[in-house]
Each structure stands twice: as structure tokens, then as C-alpha cells.
């Protein structure tokens, strides 16, 4: 029984791979393609990447990225192609610039400030 279950799980995962549908010439290109699919957000189901999403737009984006990778375009080029049209939100990791600088730094900044306050409070209660 567990072999049947194991086989079914393997089958399900295999279906999840998009690579067999998008054959590429070199392994480097395949890795580039895989990495890109995981970094690009599906704008319809916005918590999924386009590797997983079944939405038609995700399909279109996969095909476009596949085409660009086949043409030998670099990852920065492809990311720029997407963000020019859809904005930074289409990438799960927004670029480090301008307003997104605040997005990246603020959590650490807040954490640092809180730690400082805590240390100050601890020192004060120690010295009593």
C-alpha cells in the first residue's frame, strides 16, 4: 500500500515540474528558467509563483520568459522586461532602490531600535 502511495506522490510531483514542457538547450538556461519562474509572482493568484499557478496569465508569462531565455536574454533583462510592464510587485524580491529601500531596512531598523530600548530598560532596572 505504501508503495502505491509513494508512487502517487512521485507522480504528482513529476506533474508539477514545468521543465518537460519547456525544453532548453543548456543546463545553465534550464537553471535560469527555473529560478525565474520561482521569482515571478502570479498576478492573478498573488501568493503563488508562476511555476505553480494554473492561471492563464501565469501560462502566458511562462511562455514569454521561456522565449526570452531561449533568445539568450539575461536574467536582469527579463526582470526589467517584466517590471517595466507590471511594476516591481511582479517580483517576489523587489529590487533594492528608492522606496523599496525602506521596505528592506525598516524591519531591521525597528528591531534594532527595540533592542536598544530593551537594553536601556535592563540597565536601568539593574542599577536600582
Amino acid at each position: 500500500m505504501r508503495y502505491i502511495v509513494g508512487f502517487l506522490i512521485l507522480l504528482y510531483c513529476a506533474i508539477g515540474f514545468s521543465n518537460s514542457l519547456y525544453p532548453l538547450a543548456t543546463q545553465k538556461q534550464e537553471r535560469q528558467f527555473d529560478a525565474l519562474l520561482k521569482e515571478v509572482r502570479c498576478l492573478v493568484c498573488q501568493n503563488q509563483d508562476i511555476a505553480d499557478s494554473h492561471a492563464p496569465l501565469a501560462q502566458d508569462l511562462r511562455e514569454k520568459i521561456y522565449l526570452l531565455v531561449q533568445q539568450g536574454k539575461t536574467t536582469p533583462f527579463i526582470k526589467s522586461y517584466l517590471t517595466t510592464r507590471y511594476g516591481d510587485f511582479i517580483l517576489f524580491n523587489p529590487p533594492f532602490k528608492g522606496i523599496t529601500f525602506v521596505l528592506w531596512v525598516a524591519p531591521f531598523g525597528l528591531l534594532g531600535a527595540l533592542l536598544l530600548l530593551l537594553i536601556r530598560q535592563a540597565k536601568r532596572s539593574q542599577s536600582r
Partner: protein
Amino acid sequence: MRIISGRVVVLVLFILLIVCFIRALKQEPSLLPSVQIDKQLPLFKLPTLDTHTDQPPHFLATSDLQGQVALLNIWASWCSACSEEQAFLNTLSQQGLIIYGLNYKDETDAARQFLIDWGNPYYTIGQDSKGAVAMDLGVYGTPETFLIDKKGFIRYRYVGVLTQEAFERVLLPRIRLLEEAS
């Protein structure tokens, strides 16, 4: 004195966070602003959806959308929400507003049937059967409506069913401004 100011700082930060939280709850995060506002329309040339099959093939090109303030409506026969805004679009076009249609990833016959069923407000319709032009526009869902100025620049993008309320709130003031421009 120092202990009091520390607590005040934390309290102020907390109130700020609560204010941001409440404001964020009121927003619709899944609606994305277009990053192509104030940019020119992407270059395209699409075959038109003609309602009569005996006409010679025509094209809708980017240059056609210059010279007047117009709307570019992204729609498809398979998009049920698109039928909800069709009545309002028909009203708008009857009032003289030029509305171009981009038939997104659709079949010609199904698209024609949709127009028969729900009415045709479009001045011209381009068939974007592969969705390439829509991708250049940053379309991520139907229906969407773009506001194009006299020079062919994108001035606004509305996502979702265009209601009278939404039109009067976000499009009409901009249309009035753009009409006055040369």
C-alpha cells in the same frame, strides 16, 4: 525624566503602527496601479474585429489612438465580468466618448456573439488573440480600462468592472482635464 520619554516613544510608535494598520485594511492590495501612467502606448498593429465578414481586413494601430481623448477597454467574451460593464460602456459611447476595444485572447465568432448579446460600444476593436499587446500594457485581468490622451499617452488604468460611480470618481475629472489640453 528619561524613563518617561522612552515609554512615550514606544506609545507614539504603537499609535503610528495602528494608524498604518487601519489605513492598510481599507485598501485593496490585489489591485495594482499601472506603472505605465504617463508613458506612451506600446507599438502595436492588430487585425480588427469587423462585424461584417465581407469587409476587407482592417487594422488597429497605435497611431489610431492619437488625436483624441479615448478609452481603451480590455475585454473578452469568456469574461463574465465584462458583460456587467457593457451597458454602462454603451451609454458612454452614445454620449460621444470614443472607446476602443482590445479583444483579449478570444475567438472571433465568440467575440462577435458577445457584442450581439451585450451591445457594441466600441469605435474599433483590435483582436489581441495571443495577448501580446495586453502583456505590453501590463494587463493582468479583465476587464481593464485605459485612459489615453490626445498624444497617445496612457494617463490612467482602471481595473475591474467600470461602474458609473467609478467612472465619475476617477475617469471623468481626468477626461475633462485632457480634453482641455491641446
